[in-house]
């Protein structure tokens, strides 16, 4: 229990620090939010009035307090480019990106686990060279280039799937899945590559252990040893890496969603950054960091439940 309590306390501290970092982003800007809204050539009196209204004349710590207070009550301000409450925008976009991320996680795991096991079982033979080669190529291809290749072949030449766009899964699920297919395959590539490497090395480690030799010695079929015994022990670190890579995935969605015009969190973040819509930048950056942190926390807790050794160390 003390491990969990300590972990939770650290989570809260880091979350607080994340809000501080996010809040400080706007301070690095040349000029301030009032200048951003009104432009650099606006009337000084109007600027001063807006500063007063936004509370920009108050001490930093007070401003931070106000900002946090509003954020905690669900008020993230109004986007400068979309002229809409940010909380409303975020709700829709998070749902879209969740669909994308879940699909790419499934694709990545479905490809990586068999490939990694295949490589490990045939260690140092041609099968391993092929499997490890695919993984190495996967981590070396930039996702936007891989996405463009997919657009070129699957969307333009074969005309199987739409090259870009988005449909809401609530309104039309089949269409939504069709639009999400190419971007999620694009996102899955580098994740698949990392997971293949992880599966391979985890399997190699397990296959070298005594209980595997015992299984073999008592006459168990090789297939049963691999899938029923070895893989079950190798899968934990793979799932951990999959969870940790979610953070990486949330970076990649910015590029991939923009490439496919898939209007999710990544696309929204990109629009905010491109137009220097600071309230929206703060909100999207904060939400993404918080999601990444929470995923890490959940993985830690699940790990503790499944593997008691973590709690004791």
């Amino acid at each position, binding site marked *: 229990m003390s491990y969990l309590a300590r972990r939770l306390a650290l989570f809260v501290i880091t979350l607080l620090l994340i809000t501080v970092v996010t809040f400080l982003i706007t301070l690095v*800007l040349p000029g301030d939010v009032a200048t951003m809204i009104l432009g650099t050539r606006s009337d000084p009196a109007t600027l001063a009035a807006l500063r007063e209204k936004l509370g920009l004349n108050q001490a930093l710590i007070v401003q931070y307090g106000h900002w946090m207070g509003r954020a905690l009550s669900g008020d993230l301000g109004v986007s400068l480019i979309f002229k809409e409450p940010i909380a409303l925008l975020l709700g829709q976009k998070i749902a879209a990106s969740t669909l994308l991320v879940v699909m790419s996680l499934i694709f990545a795991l479905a490809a990586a686990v068999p490939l990694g096991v295949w490589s490990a079982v045939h260690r140092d033979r041609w099968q391993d060279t092929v499997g490890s080669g695919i993984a190495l190529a996967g981590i070396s291809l*930039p996702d936007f280039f891989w996405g463009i290749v997919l657009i070129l072949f699957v969307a333009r030449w074969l005309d199987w799937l739409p090259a870009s766009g988005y449909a809401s899964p609530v309104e039309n699920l089949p269409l939504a899945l069709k639009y999400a297919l190419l971007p999620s395959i694009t996102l899955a590539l580098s994740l698949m590559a990392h997971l293949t490497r992880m599966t391979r090395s985890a399997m190699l480690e397990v296959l070298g252990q005594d209980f595997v030799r015992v299984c073999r010695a008592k006459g168990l079929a090789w297939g049963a040893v691999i899938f029923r015994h070895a893989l079950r022990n190798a899968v934990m670190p793979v799932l951990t890496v999959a969870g940790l890579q979610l953070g990486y995935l949330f970076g990649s969605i910015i590029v991939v969603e923009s490439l496919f015009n898939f209007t999710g969190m990544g696309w929204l973040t*990109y629009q905010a950054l491109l137009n220097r819509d600071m309230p929206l930048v703060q909100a999207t950056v904060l939400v993404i960091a918080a999601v*990444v942190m929470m995923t890490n926390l959940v993985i830690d807790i699940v790990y503790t439940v499944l593997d008691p050794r973590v709690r004791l160390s």
Partner: protein
Amino acid sequence: MRAILSPKGIIGGALVTVFALVAILAPYAIPANQATRINILARLHPPSAAHWLGTDQLGRELVWRVLLGAHTSLVIAVSAVVLSILIGLPIGVLAGYYRGWTDHALMRLVETLLSFPALLLALTISAVLGPSERNTILAIGIAFSPYLARIVRAETLRVIALPFIEAARSQGASDSRIVRLHVLPNIMAPLTVQATISVAFAILAEAGLSFLGLGTQPPTPSWGLMIQASRDYLDIAPWTALVPGVAIAVTVLGLNMLGDVLRDALDPTMAVEG
């Protein structure tokens, strides 16, 4: 040593050597105006004897642009990684060497930065500072530094637990002497491995930032920018995307192969896993 001379090591080493040579020599070997010269009459020509790798939407020769793009990639990626080491190394060594409260405070900071996906952090920094070559280096360097700090801390913790540190301390060596003469030389190997892999990631990051318009700015030849420009001409001129894309893939592949091999050779704890 055996690992470095494996086929993987030789191919990786060769690719990285070619990339480095091209990147360093290209600006001297290719006349400056060659890569930026616009020739509207020769727009979007496919690869041929006259245009080796084809031309882009402004009739510029892709062969010169892709070679000069290597220079941009190398300069930005290596500078960014050097910057991330300059920031991450002292933080990691301080946290690992002094432990206790120093460690707690510094690691909180590092963990906080790690909660932001590196690409998001780099994009945000670049957007806030305004995109330029210098700010791209700053953005990637800062975004990568927490990863460096964490690895350096772990390695420092490993080294200071070894008996020779205790021996040095009992002889009255000062903290700075121990760090300089004993800690730093012993964390160089894992740091080299990490730096190699980081350069690969930094090349990908630079390409990604430029692709999104928040990295290198035109008319500087950059692989990410070239792919960005190719998007409108994919149907009629797919080579404008394939040429820079293959250049990135091959370069990063070489660095990753070299990184794998160096890790096997330099890091005895990882070598067992093959």
